[in-house]
């Protein structure tokens, strides 16, 4: 999952740096408030733990072994914001000293493994385990599900980042300049190996460690500073479930958009503006092309059959909803932590 240097185009890794800078800033702000002066030693040891967790080889029936990434476990143990910082630090050490993952790709790796993975894991874990006792099987299951789902989320984002490279960076004759495989290859291959193999290893490792901690040190699963403040915030889980169900229905209905014709009001391109107004404003002409869409028209080139188009619509909707939910979650966290201060 560590993307080396040379796989991502400057536009892509630059965007990831632009995404990570505010996240790092918010994380350090939040931790300064919750951990105060102890954050230095707390994060250093958290980061050391995130590093060494990958050293553990986990036996798999059949004689093979695999290792866990640990993002889910770290998030459950020290909270997602501390996990973001701790795993980022681990990734810097790995990139600089052990050559694992690139320097230009550092922010991309931090985004997938230090942001997407711990936050999705924490969300899944809280959603399933909330209200269960320390030693209930539901908590262990929640940990396993968090490990599996979060690793696959991170793998999906990695695959998308790699898969868009041939689209956005190629020579005039079509020679890809960076990672050469398109989305239709990168996504299924990453998804397959992570759904079937790495995800299972991650799930087993996360579940076993949480089961062990529940047995021997239940206080650790509910007494870290970030965890306790979050516990109160997720009290309203019934409303949340209803919201999630609605979102799922809406996402599945997105291919209905195919039936509509014409441009969406307010989303005209310069050609449509030209036919409506008779001219194209200078400023618009300049700005168009400044933001080439990641998924132009919500479909992926090369996937043209009606079923695939519908599928890419649904995929686009999931990515969009996840993105917006993520941003909303961050903003709400930002304001709620600001309010709590006396």
């Amino acid at each position, binding site marked *: 999952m560590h993307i080396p240097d040379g796989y991502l185009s400057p536009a892509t890794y630059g965007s990831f740096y632009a995404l990570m800078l505010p996240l790092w800033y918010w994380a350090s702000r939040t931790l300064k408030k919750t951990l105060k002066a102890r954050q230095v*030693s707390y994060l250093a*040891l958290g980061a050391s733990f995130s590093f060494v967790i990958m050293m*553990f080889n986990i036996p798999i029936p059949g004689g093979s072994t695999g290792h866990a990434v640990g993002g889910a476990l770290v998030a459950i143990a020290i909270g997602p914001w501390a996990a973001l910082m701790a795993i980022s630090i681990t990734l810097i050490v790995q990139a600089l000293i052990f050559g694992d993952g690139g320097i230009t790709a550092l922010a991309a790796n931090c985004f997938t493994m230090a942001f997407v993975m711990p936050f999705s894991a924490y969300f899944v874990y809280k959603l399933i385990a909330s209200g269960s006792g320390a030693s209930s099987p539901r908590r262990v299951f929640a940990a396993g599900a968090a490990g599996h789902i979060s690793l696959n989320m991170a793998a999906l984002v990695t695959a998308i980042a790699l898969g868009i490279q041939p689209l956005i960076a190629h020579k005039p*004759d079509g020679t890809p300049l*960076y990672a050469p495989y398109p989305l239709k290859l990168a996504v299924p291959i990453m998804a397959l190996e992570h759904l079937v193999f790495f995800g299972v290893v991650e799930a087993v490792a996360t579940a*076993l460690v949480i089961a062990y901690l529940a047995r021997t040190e239940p206080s650790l699963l509910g007494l870290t500073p970030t965890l306790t403040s979050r516990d109160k915030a997720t009290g309203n889980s019934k409303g949340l479930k209803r919201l999630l169900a609605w979102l799922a229905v809406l996402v599945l209905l997105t291919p209905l958009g195919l039936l509509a014709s014409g441009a969406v009001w307010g989303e005209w391109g310069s050609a449509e503006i030209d036919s409506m107004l008779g001219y194209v404003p200078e400023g618009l002409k300049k700005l168009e092309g400044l933001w080439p869409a990641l998924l132009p028209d919500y479909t992926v080139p090369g996937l043209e059959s009606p079923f695939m188009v519908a599928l890419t619509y649904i995929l686009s909707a999931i990515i969009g909803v996840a993105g917006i939910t993520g941003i909303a979650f961050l903003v709400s966290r930002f304001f709620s932590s600001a309010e709590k201060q006396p």
Partner: protein
Amino acid sequence: MKLEWLQKEGIGPCPTHKAASRNKSFIEKTLTGIGRLLSESIFAEAFAAADGPLQRMDPRVKVALVALLIITVSLLRHLSLFAAIYPGIILLVVISRIPLRFFLTRVWVFIGVFSGLLAIPALFNVFVPGDPLLTIVTFEKAHSFGPYQLPQAIAITRQGLGTASLFIMRVASSVSLVVLLVLTTRWASLLKALRVLRVPRMFTFILAMTFRYIHMLLRLIEEMHLARMSRVIRKTSAGAGQKWIGSQIGVVLKKSLSTGEDVYSAMVSRGYTDELKVLDTFRVRPVDYLWSGFALLAVSVVLWLNRTFG
């Protein structure tokens, strides 16, 4: 009896051990991994202590220049430019007194194992469409499975060859630059020097501490695995092994959290007040300006050529 392996320089397991355990258990794999990691960081320090021009360079200047070079490498679009800069990197390796064989093995084994294997399928028009250069097989007709197409003639393409070689050279140049930086800089200076890239002081401080405690936790894990290996004589089931690993990761987690607390107490009792004072002894010398000027010139020329080639 001759024990040649004992006289060899460097660190490693004895060869009889290697031969005896072809099918390694998860415990041995972990122990080997830890051993390799520890010896790697010791090796790197040995080269960093050598007396070479790159070792003498101010770490901040070196970090900034390597960052600049890696970004430049990521911008290049032509194989010929990589052919021009790679000998330059090799020259830097040689004048830094890093054994060339060691350096090339370290860089190219990594690239061969990961990026090389990854690049091979890209040669064929099955994965990257393009103009055929060398046809391998010809079928009666082209097939298509949903969004996937199998062309009638499977061939190595010009575009495929271009992308694979460009991809490998780009990865190789970036990895070489990072390895060069790591091998010529003490890790403590390297982490401190990140300040020059606007990394906050708090971060660089935590980084240095992390690196130190990684070693402590690695020793702990090593001891736990050795203890188990020396007490278990028969093969255990994968399930039992998994359960044991789960508890060990839990123990390491508890240990790291409690150590974090202990370290904090120790810091407070020595007068720590949330304010970091770090001893910076870096000094930029005239020769560092010379290096910077040279690097900027080289980067400008390469980027200009990159532009002219289109």
